[in-house]
């Protein structure tokens, strides 16, 4: 598994000496409202968490990292590539799971949904078929291929979203609040699944417990980088600040 397999190589190829994530003086506005200001950070951690209050810019940061938008100012490099400009590079290297599976599942059946991304990578048909079957089997969903998506439960839909991104073999997977609305057993199954992944992971969550075993944390506050560093340092500071704010005044 890995990028080595990918058949199309992009012009601006990844650079071995480049960190997974590098943002330099990134500022960004949506609908002419500033959502991120002057973010600079560099990280090579395999597990990066993103925390911050509602509206602090976490989802906006995720969109920039996967190249859905180009920052108004500054540069973003993921494994050395310019994800907004070089979409072929982005497709091979980063994938994103949005918060609500209903808003991201595109096709009526599980197999179609999983195949879509690989088709866009230009893989040939037998390889796509093989990978689809493999990944479903690997995650204990071998008989799902022909299932209509609407018959799946919320947690199962989440899994389909994840598999359809993993099938593309990205090096970095960005997850925007993946545990929200899942019951305890389903959430913990998802957690174990993510633990197993060899990929780099960037996870957005409001629950400090979701970052067990993480290396680094990014703390956003009103669009600015409040703190970035090792989890053991950032997480206590963040939770302390949140609980202080949560006190009735």
């Amino acid at each position, binding site marked *: 598994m890995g990028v080595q397999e990918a*058949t*199309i190589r992009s012009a601006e190829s990844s650079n071995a000496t480049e960190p997974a994530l590098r943002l330099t003086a990134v500022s960004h506005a949506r609908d002419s409202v500033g959502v991120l200001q002057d973010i600079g950070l560099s990280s090579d951690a395999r597990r990066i968490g993103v925390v911050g209050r509602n509206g602090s810019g976490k989802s906006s940061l995720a*969109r920039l990292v*996967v190249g*859905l938008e180009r920052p108004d100012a500054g540069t973003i490099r993921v494994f050395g590539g310019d994800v907004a400009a070089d*979409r072929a590079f982005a*497709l091979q290297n980063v*994938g*994103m799971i*949005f918060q*609500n599976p209903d*808003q*991201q*599942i*595109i*096709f*009526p059946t599980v197999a*179609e949904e999983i195949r*879509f*991304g690989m*088709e*866009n*990578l*230009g893989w040939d048909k037998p390889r796509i078929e093989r990978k689809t079957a493999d990944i479903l089997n690997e995650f204990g969903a071998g008989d799902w291929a022909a299932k209509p998506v*609407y018959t799946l439960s919320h947690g199962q839909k989440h899994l389909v979203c994840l598999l*359809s*991104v993993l099938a*593309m073999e990205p090096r970095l997977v960005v997850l925007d609040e993946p545990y929200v609305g899942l019951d305890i057993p389903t959430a913990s199954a998802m957690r174990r699944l993510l633990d197993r992944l060899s990929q780099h992971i960037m996870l957005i969550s409001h629950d400090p417990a979701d970052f067990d075993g993480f290396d680094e944390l990014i703390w956003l506050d009103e669009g600015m980088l409040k703190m970035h560093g090792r989890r053991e340092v950032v997480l206590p500071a963040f939770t302390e600040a949140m609980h202080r704010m949560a006190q009735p005044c």
Partner: protein
Amino acid sequence: MLSLALPRVSWAHRVPATAKLAGLLVLSLVLFPVKDPIILGGALAAVVMLTGSLGTSAMRQTMRFVVPLLFMVGLLLLFHIVFGQLRDGIAIVLRLLTMVLLANFVTMTTALSEMMALVEKLFAPFAKIGVNVRAVSVAMGLAIRFTPVLLTKSGLLFDAWRARSQKPARWRLVVPIGLAALDDAEQISDALRARGGVPSTRRSG
């Protein structure tokens, strides 16, 4: 998704879709100038038998399609009788029914997947002049996907209304539903793009 294709495989399902469509085209060109009720009647009888050869469920499905037209046919004949042009009226009605039934026959005996493959083939030549074939097939899938979503979204907002009002919502919910649907389209387009989306130029590799 519900389609008009018969679920059961008949002999006609094995005929390639291109052949069936070509036959339809040829027959419509041949029949167009014909005015003789005998020939047209023969053609209609042949098409009815063709449909009959597919079995009773095909006949039932065809009737559902034709009954609204029969209403019009009756009135049309009456109209011609009043103006003393019975022969013309009969010819029009026979030709119309023949063509509708024949086209219906093709649709019923061609699986949706086959039709979609045909669409891609038909569009392929246009790729050279810039038509994005991939965009067409993705858009078809999305449109089918959005149909139940629109209904569900509307249902949710109607519930929100009913939870706080006894009066029927009527038109007051149209705009909120529209905005919710537009938001949904926005989110889906992000999801598409995050997984490669639809290349706006043709892929070279």
